C-alpha cells in the first residue's frame, strides 16, 4: 500500500473541515470501493504535497469520507468531473443527475433540496455545494443549521416566508396529491394556526424555528446517510 494519493491539498482539506461538519479524519475517510473505482490512469501523475500526512489504508482506515464523496460526485458524471482537484476546477453537475442518486431518489422533496444548496437556485451543484448538502444532512450537523436549510427547502417561492401555497405544495408532495383540495386547505390552515406566532398567517423563520426545535423527531428524520 502506501499510495500517496492526493486529490486535494492540505489547505483545501483544512478549509473543508472548517466549513463542513466532518472532522479531519472523517474528511479523509474513504470508502474502499469508491477509491478503487475512481483510481484511473490519471492518478499515476500523483502530486504529493509535502505537508499532507500519508493516509494509508492500514494506518487510518477511518479516513474516508472526502475521497468517498468525491468518488460519488465523480460517479454521477465521469466525463465531466475531473479527478484532480488541486487546481480548483469549476464544474457543476445539473439537477437531473443529482436527483437520481439512490439516497435522494425516493425523497419527495429532492428537487427542492438540491435547489436550496445550489448557488444559482437552479440546482446545479459544484463539488463544494455537493459536500455542503451532504454535510448539513449528516447526523453531525447542529439543529440550528438543519432548521435553516429545512426552511429553505419548504419555501417553494423563495420569499423567506412559508405561506399557504408553500404548505399546499409540501402537502401535495407528501401525500402524492391524494387529498382533495378542501382537505388540503383544512390541513394547511390548521398548520398555520398552530405555528404562526406573530399573526400574519404565514410562517416566518422564527415561527418555523420555534416549532421545529420542539419537534421530537426532527433530527432523526432530517438526515441522509451517505
Amino acid at each position: 500500500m502506501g499510495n500517496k494519493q492526493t486529490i486535494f491539498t492540505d489547505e483545501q482539506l483544512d478549509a473543508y473541515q472548517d466549513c463542513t461538519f466532518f472532522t479531519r479524519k472523517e474528511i479523509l475517510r474513504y470508502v474502499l470501493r469508491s477509491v478503487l473505482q475512481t483510481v484511473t490512469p490519471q492518478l499515476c501523475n500523483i502530486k504529493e504535497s509535502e505537508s499532507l500526512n500519508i493516509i494509508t489504508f492500514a494506518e487510518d482506515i477511518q479516513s474516508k469520507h472526502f475521497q468517498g464523496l468525491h468518488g460519488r460526485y465523480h460517479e454521477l458524471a465521469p466525463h465531466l468531473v475531473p479527478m484532480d482537484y488541486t487546481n480548483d476546477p469549476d464544474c457543476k453537475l445539473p439537477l437531473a443527475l443529482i436527483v437520481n442518486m439512490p439516497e435522494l431518489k425516493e425523497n419527495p422533496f429532492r428537487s427542492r433540496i438540491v435547489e436550496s444548496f445550489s448557488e444559482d437556485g437552479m440546482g446545479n451543484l459544484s463539488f463544494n455545494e455537493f459536500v455542503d448538502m451532504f454535510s448539513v444532512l449528516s447526523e453531525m450537523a447542529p439543529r440550528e443549521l438543519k432548521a435553516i436549510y429545512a426552511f429553505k427547502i419548504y419555501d417553494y417561492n423563495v420569499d423567506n416566508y412559508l405561506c399557504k401555497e408553500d404548505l399546499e405544495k409540501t402537502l401535495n408532495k407528501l401525500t402524492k396529491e391524494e387529498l382533495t383540495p378542501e382537505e388540503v386547505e383544512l390541513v394547511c390552515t390548521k398548520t398555520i394556526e398552530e405555528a404562526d406566532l406573530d399573526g400574519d398567517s404565514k410562517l416566518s423563520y422564527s415561527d418555523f424555528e420555534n416549532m421545529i426545535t420542539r419537534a421530537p423527531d426532527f433530527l432523526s428524520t432530517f438526515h441522509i446517510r451517505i
Partner: protein
Amino acid sequence: MQISNIGFWESWRQSQSITRKRVWVQMGGALSSLLPWQHILHAIEGKFGVGVKAYFVFLRYLVYLNLLNCTLTSGFILGPTAFYGRSISSGESAIMRDSKHLFGGNDSVLDFFLGTGYLERSPVFIGFYTRGSLDLPCLNTPLLYLAGILTMILLSLIMVVRRTIVGYKHTWMLGKRYSANMSYKIFCGWDFTIQDPASATLKHSFIRNDLKLFLEEQNFSMREAQRTLGQRVRLYLLRVILNLIVVSLLGGAFCLIYFATITSQSMIGWNWLVRLVLQYLPPMSITFVNLILPHIFRKISSFEDYSFTTQVNATLVRSIFLKLASLGMYLFFVLTTTKRHQCMENRFGREMYKLCIFNFLATFCNAFLLNYPRKLVQEKFPTSFLAWVLGKQRFLIPFNVLDLVYSQTVSWVGVYYCPLLPLIGTVTLIATFYIQKFVVMRCCVAEQRMFRASSSSVLFHFMLLLGLLMAAVTLGYSFHLQNIEPDINMSSCGPFQNGKTVFNVTKVCVESLPSPAPATLYYLSSEAFALPLILAEIIILTSYVSRGRANQKAIERLKDMLVMSSSDKRFLVKQHATMLRCRSKNRTKVHSAAVVEDNWQDPPSTH
C-alpha cells in the same frame, strides 16, 4: 467558497464535541440494539406502523416486570426455604385431605393442568412454605414471604405509576394549544433516510391515513356542532338504551360465571376427562365471555355516534370493566363456596394458576386454530363466500392489549397464593410474543384507520394500575379476614397457619425491636397520624395545581405579547416609511420653493 480561518483551538474544540456526540450516539445505539427483539420490532414498525409496535413494546415491558417479580420471589421466598428448610406440619395433612378429595390421591399428567397432586405439594403453591429453621422474631420465613410479596407489589406500583404519569404528561398536559401535531406531521413527517420504493409507498400511505384520521375528526366535530335539538334528544335516548343493553350483557356474563363455578364444584362419579372439563369450566366461561363481549361492545359503540377515538376508548372502558369485574366476581364466588379447614389458600392459588394456563392456551388456539386457517381461506379461495364473510384480518390493538393487562392482573392477584406465578407469566409472555409476531407478520394486513395510540396508551397503563389495585385490595381483604375471626378463618396450611396470622407475626417482630421503634410504629399506623398526613397531602397537591395554573396563564400572556410585539413592529415600520416619505416630500417642496425663490431673486443671468 470562502475560506476562513477559525483558529486551531476553536477547530479542536469543535472536533472534540463532534467526537463526543458520536460516541454518545453510538453508545445509545449499542444499548438499544442490546434490548431483546429490537430488530423484530423495527420490522414490525416498518410494516404495520407505530400502533402495533406499541403493543409489542408493552409486551416487552411486561416481560421485564415479571422478570423483576421473579427475582424478588426467588430472593425472598425460594431462597430462605431452600437454605433453611421447612418443617413438616399439619399443613401437609390438610393438603393430603384436599387432594384425596379431588383425585383419589394418584398423581398424573393432568396435575400439571389442574394444579393438584404433585404440584400441590411443590413450591408452586403457598402450602409448601412453612416456618422452617429460620425462626428469629424478626427474620423468619413467613415474614420474609410477606415482605417479598409486599415489595413486589410496591415496586410494580411504582413502575406502573411512573409510566402512567409520563404518558399522561405527554398526552394531556401539553394540551391542544401547545402541541403542534399537524406541523410536526407535515415538516417532520417524511423520513429522509428511506431509499426503498416499497417503504416509500408505505410511508406515503401512513402519512395520508394519519391526515385522513385528523380530517375525519374535524368533520365529526363540525357535524356534532350542527346537531339540532331533536337529533340530540334521539341520540341521547339511543345511548341510554345501548348502555342498558351493555349492563344487561354484563349481568348475564356474571350469572354464567356463577353457574360455571357452582357446576365445577360437583365432582362425584365422573371419569377423568369430564372432571378435567368441569374443573376448567369457570376459566373457560370467563375466557368465552371476555372473547365475545368486547366485540359486541365494539359494534354497539359504533351506533352511538362518537368520534373514532372516543369509540375506541368507550369500548376499552367497558371491556376492562368486564374483565376486572368478572375476575372479582369469580374470586368472590370461590371465597363463598369454599368450606373451611381445607387449604383455602391453595384453592385460590389453583384457580389463579388455572386461569393463567388457560389464557395462554386460548391465545395459542386463537392463533393457530382461528387466525391461520382464516388466512389460508383468504389465500386459497379469495372469491368464495366464506372469504367474503370472514373478511381480511386486522390486528386489533386494543383487545390484544386488554388481554395482556388481564393476564398480568391475574398474575398479581395470585402471586400471594402461588409464588411461582411470575415465572409462569414470564414464560407465557415470551411464548405469546412469538405467537403474536407470527399472527401479525403472516396473517394480518395493515390497518387502514390509524389508531391514535397516544391517548389510549395512557388508558392501558391506567388499566394496569387498576389491576394492581384490585390485587392489593384482594390481598388486604384476605389478611383482614384472617384477623377478624381467627378461630373460624384460621388457615391450615402455608407460612401463616395455625393461628400465627400475618398480624401476629408482624406484631412479634415489631415488639422485638429496640425501644423507641414499636411505639413510633404504632403511632404511625394509628388514626392520629393519618389525619395530618392527609391534610398535608391536600395542601401540597393544591400548591402544585395552583402553580400549574399560574404557569399556564403566564404562557398565554407571553403568547399575546409576542403577537402584539410583531404588530407593533409592523406599525412602527409603516410609521417610519410614512415619515421618510413626508420628509422627502418636504425636502423636494423646500428645494423647489428655494429654486423658485432663487429664480425670483436672481433673475436668470444671461451667460
